[in-house]
């Protein structure tokens, strides 16, 4: 089997388990984002893929070969660090050529490849500049070019864009994704920014507490979150508790809801995205609530509704602005199509 395969990888620091029994398969040429809050184990997982940390148990395979025990410098990968780790004593060109120099490739070849890479990152003619005199975005590009110098099989990036300002970050996300598609290189990015993950990835791997909570395409992660953590972490959502009777008929806050058939569950949570909450005139098939606050952001209108002792947010475009006022009693309807019943 080709691609990157992690099998039951666990990493323990003393008594603390940073990564718990993680298995993941990354097919060749795909772009994967490891996404999660800080301390969720995503960076540790990446360091084990790079060989900078050894897994306590489990194995890492690349291209059908077990590389768990292969030291980092023999893995032929490219990695961009959060700090970028550009070598301060070398010029831009020497930084990019470092991996080639280590492999004993002759000078003329090195220079040719450096020029190619500089053209690729839109910094032609920068070879003799000192890295200390580059802007943040330029340093970022140089770090990427340095990691790609040997055309590695695997490209790893650890929070690569976190030091850039918001606007540049968005531009670099698009650029990085286009670069990856052009080169067709298997890429893994660690990030805590869900917009970044949604922009770039083929597969988003959401992690928390050292475990993978869900690994799926960005749209599926958003539309079909596997659990309440994923639903809450990706975008914003309303998590609403429900009960079900013997026939599988669901009720929320005491109102019976038609259309939900819940097999096997007595109680649980449904996740409804704010844009999927419909505000209707109160009737038998809707949940009753009171409008508490309306926030008009110009591009969107957020309506905060108190129902069953919790706040539910509905988002609409200004054209579809709900005709309600603060203090008004309204009905809320959740479409079974767009609501997700969560296991936990």
């Amino acid at each position, binding site marked *: 089997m080709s691609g990157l395969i992690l099998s039951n990888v666990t990493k323990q620091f003393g008594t603390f388990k940073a990564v718990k029994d993680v298995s993941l398969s990354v097919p060749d040429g795909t772009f994967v984002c490891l996404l999660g809050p800080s301390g969720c184990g995503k960076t540790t997982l990446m360091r084990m893929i790079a060989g*900078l940390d050894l897994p306590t148990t489990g194995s890492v395979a690349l291209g059908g070969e077990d590389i768990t025990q292969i030291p*980092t*410098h023999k893995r032929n990968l490219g990695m961009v660090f*959060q*700090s970028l780790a550009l*070598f301060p004593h070398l010029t831009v060109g020497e930084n990019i050529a470092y*991996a080639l120099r*280590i492999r004993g490739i002759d000078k003329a070849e090195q220079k040719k490849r450096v020029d190619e890479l500089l053209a690729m990152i839109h910094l032609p003619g920068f070879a003799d500049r000192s890295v200390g005199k580059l802007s943040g975005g330029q340093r970022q590009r140089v770090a990427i070019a340095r990691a790609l110098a040997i055309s590695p099989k695997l490209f790893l990036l650890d929070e690569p864009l976190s030091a850039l300002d918001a606007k540049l970050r968005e531009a670099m996300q698009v650029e990085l994704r286009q670069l990856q598609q052009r080169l067709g290189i298997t890429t893994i990015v660690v990030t805590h920014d869900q917009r970044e993950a949604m922009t770039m990835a083929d597969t988003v791997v959401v992690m928390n507490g050292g475990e993978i909570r869900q690994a799926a395409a960005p749209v599926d992660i958003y539309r079909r979150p596997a659990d309440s953590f994923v639903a809450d972490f990706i975008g914003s959502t309303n998590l609403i508790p429900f009960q079900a009777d013997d026939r599988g008929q669901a009720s929320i806050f005491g109102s019976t809801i038609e259309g939900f058939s819940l097999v096997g569950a007595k109680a649980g949570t449904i996740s409804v995205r704010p844009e999927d909450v419909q505000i209707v005139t109160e009737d038998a098939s809707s949940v009753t609530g009171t409008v508490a606050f309306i926030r008009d952001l110009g591009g969107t209108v957020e309506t905060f509704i108190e129902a069953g002792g919790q706040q539910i947010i509905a988002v609409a475009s200004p054209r579809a602005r709900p005709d309600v006022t603060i203090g008004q009693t309204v009905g809320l309807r959740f479409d079974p199509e767009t609501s997700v019943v969560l296991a936990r």
Partner: protein
Amino acid sequence: MRREPPQRFPDYGPLMFPAAMLVVFFVIPFATMIAVSFFERQQGGFYEPAFVFDNYGRFLSLFFGKVLAFSLFLAMAVAAACVTIGVPFTYLLSRSSRGTQIRWLVVLLSILSLSEVMIGFAWSTLLSRTAGITNLFAMLGLMDAQALTPSFGAVMTAMTYQALPYTVLVLYPALVRLDPTLTEAARTLGASPVRAFFTVIVPALRNTILATLIMVFIFALGSYLLPQLLGRPQHWTLSVLITDQAIYQSNMPFAAAMAVFLVLVSLSLVGLAVYAGRQKEAA
């Protein structure tokens, strides 16, 4: 915060005290020594003001040339040994746990509390035939007990031992500040840990290493007790001869002339090293 250079004379006020201390305890004694180096010696241990070059002329001989060359060579060798041991040691120290770092630093600082005399006698015992470390090897049947002192090796060992704590203390802050991901980046790019150390850590620390070399060199140049305690007469440095002339031969003008000459030679060597460093940086 923007710092403005002092504008008016009172702005220099805070500098008065250190400047006065520097004048009283450094500039005046050093100027006196320069003056004395031109004085004429009187039989009986005194000297009278004069302006003669005899004192300088006297060591334009093969003997003093050899001593000077040996002194410079010894100081350079000690500096090189200290940096060769100190850089890898401090690098590993800076990557170890906090507790380990503190324990090592305490041990190194405690070496600084030992006087040169104690260090000298401790090593002369350790390297002696009757009580030295060779007895341990003799017990293991590896070799016969033998005296390792007086010898050049003994002088080198003790001087390196004495200068190593300074070396580590100068290198430590620079190595701790060095981004640990630099080595990791080098490893992901295909460099083995040893290769990464020589292609990334050492060049990135070039200026610190040069400064350390100069510091240990000057420190070792002033050593006059250890060469006498642990070396043969041919291992005596210019500092030993200066002490000998000043204290035992009571020839102050000649001692002063040698001291001034030593300062000039070492300053020009330091200047040369700094210049070479700048050149390489600009290139």
